[in-house]
């Protein structure tokens, strides 16, 4: 059986996690990526939640960042102020974010579509996303790849990627390295060292270049060359991943 798009995204996001990383996770696919990494390549991974649940090891999948199964399986339960303070201190190696929009410099929008004062669509807002994007060492973005979600410039920068290019994060005094990976249902992307613009790393099996170009409002670097196909992992790992979410709470597509 081949991997679904959600499963491919989870495995690709999990690949960025290194053993002994401290990861800050929200809800949804990032929870699955972290749990998949912990069961495979990163058994010493520690998960912290912005709610203040530290090193939680829930037996059941949490349904939210403050869900009770996290609280009774943490080594420490503290405040959001502490948890996000750990990020600012530089203790968090990797954080996973989603967004309504992502642009060519990896800036993320979770605040409004349209003008801030008169929004066409009001979104939930930053939460801890800006805090993670400012201070976590590496940011991994997980997103559906739709044309409206990939504009040249987001309508509102909730979470800083590389802002408008090289040197901008440093100029504003931001601590972390910024986004290192964007995982979508069409492919896997990184950022060009020199220009800080989005660059393709691999294309998912069965996806065409045209599909990616059609669904992106800016030019992605590296699209004209030979693009590797995202490698599917073994059937054994596939079964393991599926066993982590038997009720399909997070893996839907």
């Amino acid at each position, binding site marked *: 059986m081949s991997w679904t798009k959600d499963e491919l995204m989870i495995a690709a996001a999990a690949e960025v996690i290194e053993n002994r990383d401290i990861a800050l996770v929200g809800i949804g696919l990032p929870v699955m990526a972290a749990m998949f990494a912990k069961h495979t390549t990163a058994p010493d991974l520690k998960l912290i939640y912005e709610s203040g649940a530290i090193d939680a090891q829930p037996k059941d999948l949490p349904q939210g960042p403050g869900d009770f199964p996290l609280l009774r399986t943490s080594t420490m339960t503290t405040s959001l102020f502490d948890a996000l303070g750990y990020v*600012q201190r530089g203790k968090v190696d990797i954080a996973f974010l989603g967004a309504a929009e992502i642009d060519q410099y990896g800036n993320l929008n979770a605040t409004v579509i349209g003008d801030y004062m008169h929004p066409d669509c009001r979104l939930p807002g930053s939460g801890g996303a800006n805090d993670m994007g400012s201070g976590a060492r590496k940011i991994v973005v997980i997103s559906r790849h739709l044309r409206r979600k990939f504009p040249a410039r987001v309508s509102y920068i909730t979470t800083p990627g590389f802002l408008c290019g090289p040197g901008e994060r440093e100029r504003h005094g931001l601590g972390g390295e910024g986004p290192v990976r964007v995982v979508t249902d069409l492919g896997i992307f990184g950022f060009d060292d020199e220009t800080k613009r989005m660059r393709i790393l691999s294309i998912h099996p069965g996806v065409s270049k045209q599909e990616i170009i059609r669904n992106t409002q800016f030019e992605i670097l590296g699209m004209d060359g030979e693009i590797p196909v995202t490698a599917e992992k073994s059937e054994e790992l596939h079964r393991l991943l599926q066993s982590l979410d038997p009720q399909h709470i997070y893996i839907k597509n």
Partner: protein
Amino acid sequence: MTTANKKLISLREAAALVPDGANMSFSGFAETNNPLSFVREMIRTGKTHLEISGMGDAQSVELLCGAGAVDLVRVSNYMAKNGRCPNFCRCAQQGTIRTEDYSHFGITNRFFAAAMGIPFMPVKVMIGSDLCEIQNFDKDRKVMEFDDPFSGERCGIVPRLAPDFAVIHVARADAEGNCQLYGITSSIEIIARAAKHVIVTAEEIVDTEEIRRTNQFTILPSFFVDYVVHCPFGAYPGGVFTYYDYDLEHLDLITRSGKSPDTMEAYFDEWVYGTKDEAAFFDKVGIRRLMDLRADPYSGVSLRNRRQFL
């Protein structure tokens, strides 16, 4: 500060303390610990023109926006289970509330400055982003970039923010206002220390001797607290760890109702205006529902609600 024996008051008395136009902050994170009995009582008594300075108090703010009680919101993130808060979003889109956006850590640092008795806090968040660039009603008193006078390092500073009232829901309090909470605290102890007036709603009222015996759970000493209200199930339909699970069905009902002003009004008519007080509200919820949600003392969640029978 009131004397200890006058701190314990009724929910009605406590809600009456809040004037229209007050700057308020509520406890809560995701599905837990919002002071919703207090919020329903505010809606029953028709509060208006409120200013909200919150961090994670989505359930409170969503209901108050739906009731047309809010003018201004300092928002870091308002989400209902798996999505947007429809009342809050509609009000923001139609311009009936004005918003100022913060990150969770950014606004909590504004509370922290007030809690520490200092004018501002340096931060390394919000800077560079539109949370800093775009300033609405907090223009010039939101966040600005700043060079550390000692090292020259670039950072941000945020000014202190002291709400008029913090209303926080805790697990246990004594009559003097010593507060206990198990598990994550969101950041309610900071918000309480920042606020000019603090009203505590508590699942249980216990003797001070019991607080002393279990003082590892105390998050706030009594001298920050002005009033204490006994509110069992006071976060319902949200949950309180080790007391009861959140009621997903009722939370969904609120989110579904919020999709249009008419259905939201119908919700309030049935559940809030239609119940004269919280006792009548919980009569309507029903004992069976509450028993299903009651937490198993060992696991802290309702195994029945989560379909995990032992």
